[in-house]
């Protein structure tokens, strides 16, 4: 296949390279965000699961992941054209990225940037499975997931050849590909894995919230690369995405604190961290398609609805230990739906107008289809992978190992002496 060579813009390339590093920093940030919330005997287990994703998923991305996500012109799946990094360093353009979607950066920069997304997405699952997932089972689970599930959804939504992209569903930086995808997978794994021993009767409060706040800061910082980098250019759209990202995080935090104060009596540090992340999740699909006060509204809705979604796990008795479903799945869905209302072609001419901007309900229709397809595909495939692992090597650590904690039982280490 011959692709037209595009003009490389040095400013855009510089920004995307920096953004790749920013997104890479989010995974250790996530590790601390989660690590502070688990009990002290499990923090190394949590940090390890996250940092390990940086190792395993990066290699898989180079071998097949990128090619399965962005190779070929299929509507539903990529192919193996770029497997083993074939041609990636010399490639002029990617399939589908032509005309108005032409990249102004080297394909290799795009490869590196997208690699960081592939790394953090399965790492998000670890918050739901905290304190009881066997490390070996985790390694295989996310390895298979990063080959079968992630590239497929990325192809549908991100690649201009993907069926959801072609339909007109919008996802600027991964509301569906990253957050709904990981959230649905987290739910599937938790249902196979079961609840922590003693949950919900036994108190399992966070052991080190300062670490969680530190992680929140790193995530927030890295998210500028995640969202503003997704402009794939150093221009006004990148600036719009950066400002939107920050405003949504800010209003998400304030909204969460307010409803928490009203309903539970105190504004908490964990609430501030959770609300900010909820706002960041919800703005992710919208970052380069909305403007004005829309990001503040998006953060506000996310802060309130994600807080209210916390009750789901106690109501339906699934131990989503650190609320991945309430924050990432629900937050991602909120962002995708609000985009159907608030998208504005004056901000981004490659998008569409939402219902409140005179675009009618066709965008909303496509957003709902994208949410449903991502959720269903990720949930079903992940459920099957988890079941197979559970029936063969077992997903869960032994009762004794769970009692002594993952740090000791899985890694023969202790975080605190």
């Amino acid at each position, binding site marked *: 296949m011959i692709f037209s060579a595009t003009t490389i813009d040095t400013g855009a390339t510089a920004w995307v390279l920096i953004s790749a590093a920013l997104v890479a920093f989010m995974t250790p940030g996530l590790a601390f965000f989660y690590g502070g919330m688990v009990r002290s005997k499990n923090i190394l287990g949590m940090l390890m699961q996250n940092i390990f994703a940086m190792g395993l998923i990066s290699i898989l991305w180079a071998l097949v992941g990128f090619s399965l996500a962005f190779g070929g012109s299929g509507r539903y799946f990529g192919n193996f054209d770029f497997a083993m990094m074939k041609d990636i360093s010399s490639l002029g353009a990617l399939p589908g990225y032509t005309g108005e979607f032409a990249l102004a950066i080297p394909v290799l920069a795009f490869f590196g940037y997208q690699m960081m997304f592939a790394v953090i997405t399965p790492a998000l699952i670890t918050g739901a499975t905290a304190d009881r997932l066997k490390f070996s089972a985790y390694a295989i689970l996310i390895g298979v997931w990063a080959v079968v599930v992630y590239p497929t959804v990325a192809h549908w939504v991100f690649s201009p050849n993907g069926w959801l992209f072609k339909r007109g569903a919008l996802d600027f930086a991964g509301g569906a590909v990253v957050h709904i995808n990981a959230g649905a997978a987290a739910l599937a794994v938790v249902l196979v894995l079961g609840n922590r021993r003693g949950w919900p009767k036994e*108190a399992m409060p966070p052991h080190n919230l300062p670490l969680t706040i530190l992680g929140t800061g790193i995530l927030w910082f890295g998210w500028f690369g995640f969202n503003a980098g997704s402009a794939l250019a150093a221009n006004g759209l990148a600036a719009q995405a950066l400002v939107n990202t920050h405003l949504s995080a800010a209003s998400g935090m304030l909204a969460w604190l307010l409803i928490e104060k009203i309903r*539970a*009596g105190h504004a908490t540090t964990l609430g501030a961290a*959770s609300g900010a992340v909820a706002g960041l999740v919800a703005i992710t699909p919208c970052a380069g398609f909305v403007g004005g006060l829309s990001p503040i509204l998006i953060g506000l809705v996310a802060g309130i609805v994600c807080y209210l979604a*916390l*009750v789901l796990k106690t109501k339906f008795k699934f131990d989503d230990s650190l609320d991945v479903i309430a924050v990432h799945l629900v937050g991602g869905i909120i962002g995708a739906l609000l985009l159907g209302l608030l998208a504005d072609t004056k901000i981004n001419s490659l998008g569409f107008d939402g219902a409140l901007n005179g675009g009618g309900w066709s965008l909303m229709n496509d957003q709902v289809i994208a949410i449903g397809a991502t959720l269903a595909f990720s949930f079903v495939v992940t459920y099957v992978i988890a079941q197979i692992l559970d029936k063969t090597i077992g997903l869960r650590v032994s009762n004794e190992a769970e009692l002594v904690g993952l740090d000791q039982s899985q890694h023969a280490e202790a975080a605190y002496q």
Partner: protein
Amino acid sequence: MKLVTAIIKPFKLDDVKEALKAAGAQGITVSEVRGFGRQGGHTETYRGTEYQIDFIPKAKVELVVDDSSVDRLVDIIRNAASTGKIGDGKIWVTTVDQIIRIRTGEQGQDAI
């Protein structure tokens, strides 16, 4: 010879230490402990879920004194540690059979 043990509120530790020093106490041993008494524990709320925390932090003060100064020092501790609110803690006194100073080998009253 008596061992005086006091469980007090951690923020009262400085007041107790200063009062004991002023009263001529030769030394005290302090540890951070957790427990509950009539005060019970307290609740903490994380993401809207309330947890009952039974054990709350307290400071434990121990000192060995001769029989003649027990009552005076217990009063001093009580005055310094009191806030008048529930959870102020307790003081108890036990008899000590023997004391040995490690450096010199002195025993009994001389080792206090």
